[in-house]
Every structure is written in structure tokens, then in C-alpha cells.
């Protein structure tokens, strides 16, 4: 028996597997990457412009994979249409179908289309064979690329991004609420949960775009725009500080109030979750990146070292945020609701919800991204970086 102490008989087997860890991790990356993109579009942080299109494509690649872990987890995936047909208004999970569809169609796809429409039309005219057909289809029949039409693209795109920010918060925040609203589980139940999820999502999304940008530049043998990555790292730091503060607040509050669940949760944290929570999530995944990037803000660090530091911190952050999802989802099921015992999570290698499937789901978005980048290049051949057409507001300002 893998049980230590006492557990209600039906609690011994975990219900939500590693796939349910992968799902919020992926939607978190989507939301975070989108927020990074919106930094440039809405808040005019010009320095991060080189990553704008890449961030959007990254968000799309991960968004397309997001429903897969859920479908693989369901006992009856063929019935998932029911979520659209008879959504139960009191269930946060029922929101998924609609929020996902909204975010996919009305935000990500629309924004990418608007931003790339100019190039798509040009490609549809300049390429041949199946590529020509592809771009013709993507253009959705439009062929007007006059100054006026591009200005309209820009304006509408700006509105879409603006709507996209709260939509991104909703896409990932509702996942936090799914956990945070379960009064039966004291590890999950907290009003802070949606907020913690959103900020950790932003941290992971910013990191993944940073890493993909640096890797892409290395692969294309082009120089990394240091002003860009320095700025991204700054925003990463700010977001991290808020995220860390929230998590510490939760921890301190729990320790101070020490309610009926505390002793049991505390023990779990010092034993089963010690490596994933204290070592991976807190020390390696949060404290070290904060201290490193913080150090870089205060002291002059040479470019090469900064690049290395950003790459390492980016990787640590990604691992740390995955660990955070693991600690929430799996951690919340390792202890008994009687607070008298613990069980263990048996992660299979080869099964519908096993390690290999989880790994495949995490790799798949990168493959999709590689395809997207080929179809919709986020960079122009003549320039070293990725540039979007300057927005009307900026043109106006320069004049």
C-alpha cells in the first residue's frame, strides 16, 4: 500500500495526473507570451519590438496544443462537446470551451492575421505552387494592401490586443479559480490562487519567449538585440517580484494561522514536496533568477555574461514554474482530506497519462512553432531583428 497514515479509501488513487499539470503550464505560457507581446503594442515598450511577432506565434503554437492534455485525461473525450452544449453556469471548468474558443479566434488568430496580412497578400502574389494556395487561403480573400487598409489593420489590431490582455488573464485566471474555489482542498482553496497563477504565467511566458528568441537568433547566426533582452529581463524581474511576494504571502499566512490542515500540509512540504517545492520552485526557480537579474540591474555585467545569465535564468524559471504547477496539482492530492495521511503518485512511463505523453505534449508546441515560423516568418531577410511595421501612433509621434 502506498499510503502513509490514513486516507479515505477513495482518495488513495490520484485523480488528476501529470497531464493536468501540463495543461495550466501550457496555458500559462500562452497568456505570458501574449502579455509580453502586448507590452510593445499597447504600452509602447519599443525595446521589445524584436520579439513581438515571435511572442504571438509562440502563444498560438502552445494554444493549439492546450486542449490535448485535457482530451487525453477525460474518461469520455467523445462527450466533451457537452461542455459547449450544456455548460453548467456554476462550474469554472465549463468556461473552458468558450474562453478557449474566444481566445483562439477573437484574439490570437485575429491579431496574427491582422499583423501579417500585408505579408500574406504579398506572399500570395509572389510564391508558386502549394505555397501560393496556402497564402491565398490565409489571406481569406483580401488583397487590398493600400496605406489606408494597413492603417485599419493597425487600428483594429490595437483594439484586439487591448481586449486580448484581459482575455489572457481570463484564459489562465479561470484555471487558478478552478483550484482556488475548491473548499474541500485547503492546499488549493485560496482567493490568491487565480492571481498567483496569472503572475506565474507571465513569468513563464516571458521566459519562454526570451529563450526562444535567443535560441532562434543563435540558430540563424544573427546577433541578439541586447537592448531587447535586457528589457525583457527587467520585466521578468518585476513580474517575478510580484509573483514571489504573492507566494510568500500565502506561505506566511498559512504558517501564522496554522489551521486544521497546517500540520498535515507542512509535513508534506518537508517530505514529499521538498524537492519540487523548496529546491526546484523556490530556490532554483525563483530566488536565483531574481537575485541574478537583480544583480544585473545594479552592477555592470558584460554582454556575454548577461546573455548566459538570461539563458540560465530563463531555463530555471521554466522548470520552476512547471514545478509550481506540479506542486499545486499533484501536491493537492498527496495528502488526505482527513489530514491524517499521505499517498504517493505513481507516474507511469507509457500510458495515456504517463511521462512519455506529457513529454510529447511539451515538445509538440515547438514543432508547431517551427512550422509557423516557416509560414509566417517573424523576421525580415534584410534586417537582423524582427520588426513590425511601426504603429500609426508612433508615426504620428515622429511627425
Amino acid at each position, binding site marked *: 500500500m502506498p499510503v502513509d497514515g490514513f486516507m479515505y479509501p*477513495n482518495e488513495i488513487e490520484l485523480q488528476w495526473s501529470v497531464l493536468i499539470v501540463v495543461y495550466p503550464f501550457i496555458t500559462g505560457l500562452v497568456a505570458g507570451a501574449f502579455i509580453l507581446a502586448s507590452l510593445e503594442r499597447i504600452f509602447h515598450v519599443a525595446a521589445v519590438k524584436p520579439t513581438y511577432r515571435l511572442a504571438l506565434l509562440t502563444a498560438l503554437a502552445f494554444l493549439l496544443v492546450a486542449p490535448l492534455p485535457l482530451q487525453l485525461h477525460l474518461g469520455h473525450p467523445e462527450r466533451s462537446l457537452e461542455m459547449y452544449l450544456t455548460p453548467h453556469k456554476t*462550474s469554472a*471548468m465549463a468556461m473552458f470551451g468558450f474562453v478557449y474558443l474566444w481566445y483562439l479566434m477573437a484574439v490570437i488568430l485575429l491579431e496574427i492575421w491582422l499583423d501579417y496580412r500585408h505579408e500574406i497578400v504579398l506572399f500570395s502574389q509572389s510564391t508558386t505552387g502549394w505555397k501560393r494556395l496556402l497564402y491565398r487561403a490565409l489571406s481569406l480573400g483580401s488583397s487590398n494592401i493600400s496605406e489606408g487598409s494597413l492603417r485599419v489593420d493597425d487600428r483594429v489590431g490595437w483594439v484586439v490586443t487591448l481586449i486580448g490582455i484581459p482575455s489572457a488573464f481570463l484564459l489562465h485566471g479561470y484555471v487558478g479559480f478552478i483550484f482556488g474555489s*475548491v473548499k*474541500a482542498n485547503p492546499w488549493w482553496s485560496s482567493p490568491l490562487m487565480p492571481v498567483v497563477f496569472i503572475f506565474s504565467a507571465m513569468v513563464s511566458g516571458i521566459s519562454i519567449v526570451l529563450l526562444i528568441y535567443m535560441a532562434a537568433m543563435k540558430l540563424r547566426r544573427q546577433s541578439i538585440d541586447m537592448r531587447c533582452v535586457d528589457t525583457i529581463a527587467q520585466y521578468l524581474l518585476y513580474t517575478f517580484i510580484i509573483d514571489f511576494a504573492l507566494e510568500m504571502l500565502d506561505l506566511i499566512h498559512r504558517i501564522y494561522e496554522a489551521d486544521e490542515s497546517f500540520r498535515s500540509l507542512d509535513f508534506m512540504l518537508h517530505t514529499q514536496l521538498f524537492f519540487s517545492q523548496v529546491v526546484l520552485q523556490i530556490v532554483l526557480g525563483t530566488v536565483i533568477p531574481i537575485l541574478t537579474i537583480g544583480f544585473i540591474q545594479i552592477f555592470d555585467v558584460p554582454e556575454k555574461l548577461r546573455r548566459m545569465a538570461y539563458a540560465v535564468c530563463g531555463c530555471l524559471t521554466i522548470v520552476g514554474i512547471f514545478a509550481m504547477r506540479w506542486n499545486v496539482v499533484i501536491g493537492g492530492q498527496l495528502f488526505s482530506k482527513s489530514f491524517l495521511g499521505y499517498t504517493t503518485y505513481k507516474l507511469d512511463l507509457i500510458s495515456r497519462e504517463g511521462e512519455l505523453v506529457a513529454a510529447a505534449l511539451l515538445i509538440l508546441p515547438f514543432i508547431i512553432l517551427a512550422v509557423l515560423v516557416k509560414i509566417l516568418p517573424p523576421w525580415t531577410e534584410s534586417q537582423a531583428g524582427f520588426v513590425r511595421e511601426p504603429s500609426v501612433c508612433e508615426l504620428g509621434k515622429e511627425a
Partner: protein
Amino acid sequence: MITRRKLLMLLPAAAMAWEYVAAGTPEISPNYSRPEHWWGMLVDIDKCIGCGNCVRACAAENSVPDGYFRTWVERYHVAGWQQETPQVDSPNGGKNGFPPSKAVGGKNFFVPKMCNHCEDSPCTQVCPVGATFRSIDGVVLVDEKYCLGCRYCIQACPYGCRFLHPAKHTAEKCSLCYHRITKGLTTACCESCPTGARQLADLKNPKDPIHEYLKTHSVQVLKPHLATGAKVYYHDLDGSVR
């Protein structure tokens, strides 16, 4: 934009849905008027002898798979004055009774557990599609033809009474033997309890002895601080019971 993936996911779901639209309406049970009943249960801790009859009977009546429990019995040992750290065991849910205890002294008793058919049930609140619900007669039920197997309800139940059926891949739990109580029979667990520790109660029936009982005995529910409106009333439930 309809992608091929979406269409592939849609078609089998559509076929599934069509199946029960075409099936027609099942027979209605005669003489039973749902709005006239509000079901609950009374469990008397003083009478439970931990024989496990209820667990076995429930498994037989409802084809409960091995290793999963629609009802189970826990044995408590409370040493001294500590209320927060009882020693509890439930070997195979108490299905084969309990082996002799190694405990010495203290307070020892059995606690049968099951779905509490809560009035403000947190499990029905979270179901994304309406596959689990509280019926008009107060029984929390699972529609196994509609359940997606997302397991949110299992997470939301504070009492650990739900599980995922390993073959049907849908959520399952005590149905208060709905197929029996709607025919004037009692539940399988109550029928087989030799001491009367478990008794079905109809809170809307003025003739049900529960009303007099509630007026004259001290009763408790599990985890009252969660305000679930649990309708399984325990008599003499010790404060150490989790």
C-alpha cells in the same frame, strides 16, 4: 475557423449525443411522487459494530468494483485528550470487518461513511456539464451516460465519497440506492445493518421517526464548517472524527 482537428473531435461526440436522443424515455416508477420526499440518513455511532455488512451489501447491490467504495467504515482510536490526531484505519474499507485492534485503552469506535447527499453540495456545483446533480427528492446522483470523466466532482467532495469507475470511466458514488427507495424499499446498507446503526430518513415525511429523533437526540454532521448542508446525521459523533 474550423480546423480538421476540431471536426474530427466533433463527429464522434455528435454520434454519441444522437444515441441517447434516439433512445426514447425510460419507464417512470409508479406511485412515487418525487416532490413529496427529501431523503437523508441517520447513523448511530453507538450502535455500529464494524461488521462491514453495509459495505458488502452496497457492493453487491450496486456492482461496486473491488478497491472502490460507495460506503465504507472507519475505526477510530482516540488516546487521551488529543482531538486532532486520532488513529484511524479502514482495511479494505471495512468490507471484511476489522481485525483485532492493537490499541489499548482510550476511546474506540466505528464510523460508517458515505455520500452525505448535501443540500448545498460542492460536487454538483463544479460539474461542467450537469452530469451530477441533486434530484428533486434530495438525492445527489450521477448520470453515467452524460459524465465526461473530468473528475472535478471527485476533487470537490470534502468527504472523499466519490471515485472514478475503472471500467465505465465516469464518476460514481453512493446513490442512496435510488432504485430501491423510489420503490418503498430501504437502502441496501440499511437493510443489511444488523444493529440498526444505519437508518434511511425521509425528512419530508411527517411520519418518519427522524423528526422525533432530531428533537430528542444530539446529532452532528461531518465537516460542519464547510456548510455543505450534509443530510447524513450522526448520533454521538466524536469531535475527533475527520
